């Protein structure tokens, strides 16, 4: 029987969420989760024990939302009805809100929500979430510099993860990115079983690391060397001094085809029995997301057939390569919130030279990071000559415009309009009918732009999507 406090927490959360929605204050996820945790601090522990097949935790700097959505899609293809936290609700209160909403009036998870939990978790919250959720599988997707004013340095985040893993029972299986030395090191000398994923494709080698590489030195002090360099500090790395090297992978992509940046294909598995996977997502970063989700699914014991069925059918997650139809124009939004992620987005949009109109939105709200210095670490130079019309917006629109100017983008093509709503109108107006408008927002800018675009194109708001739909 659930504790009275848990039942009370569930009721309080439901009431708070309903009140927030009635007042028109969005989905009420944060407030209902806060209320639930206030009434019952152990509500996440209590309710998550009701998940019959346990849960998967997905963390990392980039790709959490897409990877978690992919794991959930694979689980659905396997006949399960997974419980998933809504995009961005990846702090403890978001997880608490998701669980409380999935519980019935008795304070236990409702019958349809009891199979498997799939939770994306903020990097900084991962130790606490690991403790509360006791996941069966934890995915560490990657670790890049992101909001140093909020998270601290990459090495400090990795150290906190390592401490949390030491306190976690051996029954946990780790899913680790072999190509990221900061993540792969979590499996070294670990008591946990580790499944590694990675890319094996010489054609993707850039020959050198990007400026925004973070894990540049080994724990022994020597600089890593790379046989293949993909992006950020991802690649086939080794330490020439102490011999540490990229581990071999159990889930591998080869023969990657990035096409026009809106779809991709790769061969997964060993050469002889490899399966060709085609997806409706663009960019190498989504190959990594697909590999991470596949490795997590296999670690959970989900059948291979479910993976092969789910990946090609998958549609972009909230704000990540999401498309809208506005006045006969195709508007495509690609979230970019740190140098490594934005570099991947820039690489992806340059795959289609027919993209000619761009809207870039740079915000400096708390959830974006107050410090906008990071835009100077992203390689905007690669797209300097592509766009004919560029609208720059957000709370730090001028900083963004200056970055583009110094990246060699022609100044006459830049229009600065800090107001996001007006900027969207200007950008749509600058887009010829049937052409594509590309939108690159930071996190809170994505929420703002998405709200406008959803209304203009007749999509539902985010709090009406998610589990109810699944």
């Amino acid at each position, binding site marked *: 029987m659930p504790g009275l406090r848990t039942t009370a927490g569930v009721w309080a959360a439901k009431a708070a969420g309903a009140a927030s929605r009635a007042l028109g204050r969005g989905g009420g996820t944060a407030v209902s989760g806060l209320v639930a945790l206030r009434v019952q601090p152990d509500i996440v522990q209590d309710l998550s024990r009701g998940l019959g097949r346990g849960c998967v935790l997905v963390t990392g700097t980039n790709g959490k939302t897409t990877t978690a959505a992919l794991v959930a899609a694979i689980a659905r293809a396997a006949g399960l009805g997974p419980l998933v936290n809504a995009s961005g609700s990846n702090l403890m209160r978001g997880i608490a809100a998701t669980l409380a909403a999935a519980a019935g009036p008795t304070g236990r998870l409702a019958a349809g929500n009891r199979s498997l939990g799939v939770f994306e978790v903020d990097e900084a919250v991962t130790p606490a979430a690991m403790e509360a959720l006791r996941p069966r599988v934890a995915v560490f997707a990657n670790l890049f510099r992101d909001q140093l004013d909020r998270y601290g340095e990459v*090495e400090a985040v990795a150290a906190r993860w390592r401490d949390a893993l030491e306190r976690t029972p051996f029954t946990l299986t780790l899913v680790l990115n072999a190509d990221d030395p900061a993540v792969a090191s979590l499996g070294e000398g670990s008591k946990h079983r580790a499944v590694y994923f990675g890319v094996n494709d010489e054609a993707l080698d850039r020959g050198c690391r990007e400026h925004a590489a973070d894990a540049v030195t080994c724990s022994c002090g020597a600089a890593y060397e790379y046989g293949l360099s993909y992006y950020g500090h991802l690649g086939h790395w080794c330490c020439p001094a102490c011999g540490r090297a990229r581990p071999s992978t159990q889930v591998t992509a080869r023969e990657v085809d990035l096409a026009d940046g809106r779809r991709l294909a790769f061969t997964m598995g060993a050469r002889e029995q490899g399966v060709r996977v085609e997806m409706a997502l663009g960019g190498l970063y989504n190959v990594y997301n697909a590999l991470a989700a596949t490795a997590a699914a296999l670690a959970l014991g989900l059948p291979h057939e479910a993976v092969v069925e789910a990946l090609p059918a998958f549609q972009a997650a909230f704000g990540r390569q999401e498309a809208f139809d506005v006045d006969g124009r195709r508007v495509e939004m690609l979230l970019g919130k740190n140098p490594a992620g934005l570099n991947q987005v820039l690489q992806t949009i340059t795959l289609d030279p027919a993209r000619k109109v761009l809207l870039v939105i740079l915000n400096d709200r708390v959830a974006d990071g107050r410090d906008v210095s990071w*835009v100077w670490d992203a390689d905007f130079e690669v797209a300097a000559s592509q766009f004919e019309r560029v609208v720059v917006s957000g709370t730090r629109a001028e900083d963004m415009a200056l970055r583009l100017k*110094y990246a060699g983008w022609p100044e006459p093509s830049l229009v600065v309009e800090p107001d996001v709503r007006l900027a969207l109108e200007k950008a749509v107006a600058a887009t010829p009918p049937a052409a594509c408008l590309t939108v690159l927002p930071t996190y809170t800018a994505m929420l703002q732009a998405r709200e406008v675009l959803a209304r203009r194109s007749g999509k539902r708001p985010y709090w009406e999507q998610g589990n109810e739909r699944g």
Partner: protein
Amino acid sequence: MSGAERRLRLGHLYPALMNVYGDRGNIICLERRCRLRGIALEVVPVGLGEAVDPSALDLLFIGGAQDREQRLVAEDLRSKAGALLEAVEAGVPMLAVCGGYQLAGRFYRGADGEELAGAGLLDLYTLHPGPQAKRLIGNVVVQWQDGELVGFENHGGRTFLGQGCEPFGRVVLGFGNDGASGYEGARYRNLFGTYLHGPLLPKNPAFADHLLSLALARKYGDGGLEPLDDALELRAHAAAREAASRRS
């Protein structure tokens, strides 16, 4: 205009290790402002174990780093201290930002009490008050000799100046060296140390040109620079100043 013949060599110290948050923007800025004026700016990366030739460099830059890299750099920087000091004494303009600023001082005592000896180019030292101490984070506005500078600071260490250097500027908004003295950064001859990290120069074009001008005056006896169209730069400067005043 004899601009086409003017050449400058910028020594970029530890570009692969000391680049933590947008520091590259300063180099991109100097390159562009030189290119538009027909000045050939050659950026010379100087890594671990590589010698500095003080007579062959006209400008020096060192950025910030994460802890692990900063420890590696500290030791190496001490081996370059003689050559760097020779350049600084000869009036070579140098910009040292954040971690690079701390390491240019006499020592840095970390949150764990561990002391890291610096290069001693600036008569200052830095103390981290301990893991519980508040980091000094936020948009910042500084008054320097030629007006206002805008930027962002993010540091745990508090820096204290000795007699051998003067403050770079006075804090208008933000924390500066230690959050109490009202001073930001340090200056000795043409060496400028500052906590304004990341892309300091693009949004402060007057300071960028000041560094170039000092380098040109030293090398060619004439630091004159044609003005550039800085409308967007000044707009970004104003917006950053506005952001700094919003936070308090």
